[in-house]
């Protein structure tokens, strides 16, 4: 009986601690929420083993509560994950955070937390956020989703107190291409061994943001 009581006490204390949302994350979220809208020029460099693409530029327009808009004179590919600076996807459904301590990355001491959604509707399975609590910014994140795989984000900020990143590097898993035979150039060599090895590859997209016009609330 006494053992059962101790176990219950330990479990409830643990749950109570886990369900508390990290204060630093809330501060960052509050800071992000202050961004009502922004426009910027984004310079994209795609690094995927089976895609060769020159550097592209696009104009992005964000307004709170709306879908991000893009425009470009060229054909551009923008990552579906990696432009969610406001962390809306993470905050969309209820979640809990777990403190994972600190870690030094790129010479910075970062606070590491796990974000675990508590609602089954969320596509997010687990997010690990690396936060620079001194300046209230998320510097790195590893996002595991239920349907859309895993992706990592590395964010760099311009010196100062800017809310939005100047550089974002998104790393993601990407399935190999299924090319219709009639689209292949005659010079194309089909190496089945190589193709099997290319089932899933890691892709990377580097985004450099310029000419930010930010409207804070």
């Amino acid at each position, binding site marked *: 009986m006494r053992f059962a009581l101790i176990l219950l006490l330990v479990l409830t204390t643990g749950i109570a601690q886990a369900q508390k949302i990290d204060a630093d994350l809330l501060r960052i979220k509050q800071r992000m929420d202050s961004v009502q809208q922004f426009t910027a020029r984004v310079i994209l460099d795609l690094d995927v*083993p*089976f*895609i*060769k*693409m*020159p550097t592209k530029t*696009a104009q992005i327009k964000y307004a709170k509560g709306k879908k991000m808009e*893009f*425009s*470009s*004179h*060229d*054909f*551009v*590919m*923008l*990552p*579906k*994950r990696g432009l969610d600076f406001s962390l809306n996807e993470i905050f969309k459904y209820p979640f809990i955070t777990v403190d994972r301590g600190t870690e030094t990355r790129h010479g910075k001491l970062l606070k590491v937390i796990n974000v675990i959604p508590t609602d089954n509707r969320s596509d997010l399975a687990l997010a690990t956020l690396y936060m620079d609590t001194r300046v209230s910014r998320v510097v790195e994140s590893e996002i595991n989703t239920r349907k*859309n795989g895993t992706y990592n984000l590395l964010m760099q900020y311009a010196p100062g107190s800017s809310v939005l990143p100047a550089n974002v590097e998104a790393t*993601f898993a*990407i*399935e*190999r*291409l*299924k*090319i*219709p035979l*009639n*689209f*292949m*150039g*005659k*010079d*194309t*060599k089909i190496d089945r061994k190589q193709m099997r090895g290319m089932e899933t590859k890691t*892709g990377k997209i580097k985004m450099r943001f310029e000419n930010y016009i930010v409207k804070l609330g």
Partner: protein
Amino acid sequence: MRALLRAEMLKLIKQSKTYYALAAILVIELLIFITAYYQGTTILDLLLDNLKQSFYFEGTLLNGNLIMYIVLNSLWFNVPLILMIVTSGLVTDEYKDGTLQTVMLQAVKKWKFILAKYIMAVLFTVTVIALMMLTTFILAYSIFGKGDLVVYINTLNFFKSADAFRRICWAFASGTVAMVFYSVASITLAILIKDSAKTWIAAALFLIITNLLLKVDLGISALNAYFFPKLIDTWQQLFYFETNWLAIGLNNAVLLLYCLALTVAGTYLFNKKDIG
């Protein structure tokens, strides 16, 4: 020589075969346009399906540049076959109609006569490709507009619109050299075979074997690099992401040397052969 060239041009303009050939090339173009218009989006969707899971796309890839690239692909078989049929006719028709003997009764040197045929075949080929390029440009841009080009050659290569246009122009130029080679080869075959139907079969066989040999590893690096079947796809190299201009220039120069060698050989054989 000028009079001979004028006479050859007149023959080419007068014969209905020339217009059938031009019409056939335009029909091929139109079929490509119709297919692209109705099925282009579906094919591109299928091609980019995996990427759509990770990316938002802005802009369209079904544009004039893609259509021009697809039209360029008719340089593999359709266009050379038509060109070989028409150009071989420049010689075989003379044998068939018995006009060769009549011409040779005049004060015409045999080598000059056959050289005029070769020159006319080259001029006709260049004109056909130029016409094909012009009609494609006008139709493709007016119907589908400009845009970035996507090509799959081992990797999915994207080119910006202006760069794509430049590459397509160079590809047409390089493709013209390959087509000239086929035309010159067909004249040489016509000199050897004389009969038109047999020459057409031989020309088609030559085209098929050349296309097959393109993929075959010949074991010797020099043969793999400079044997003529390995050079006919040079225009395709303009759509590699990293373009080796030197290799493209060299390949075309070697292919032109093959043309020259075939012309010399054909002229020599014609000169040596009995007219009858």
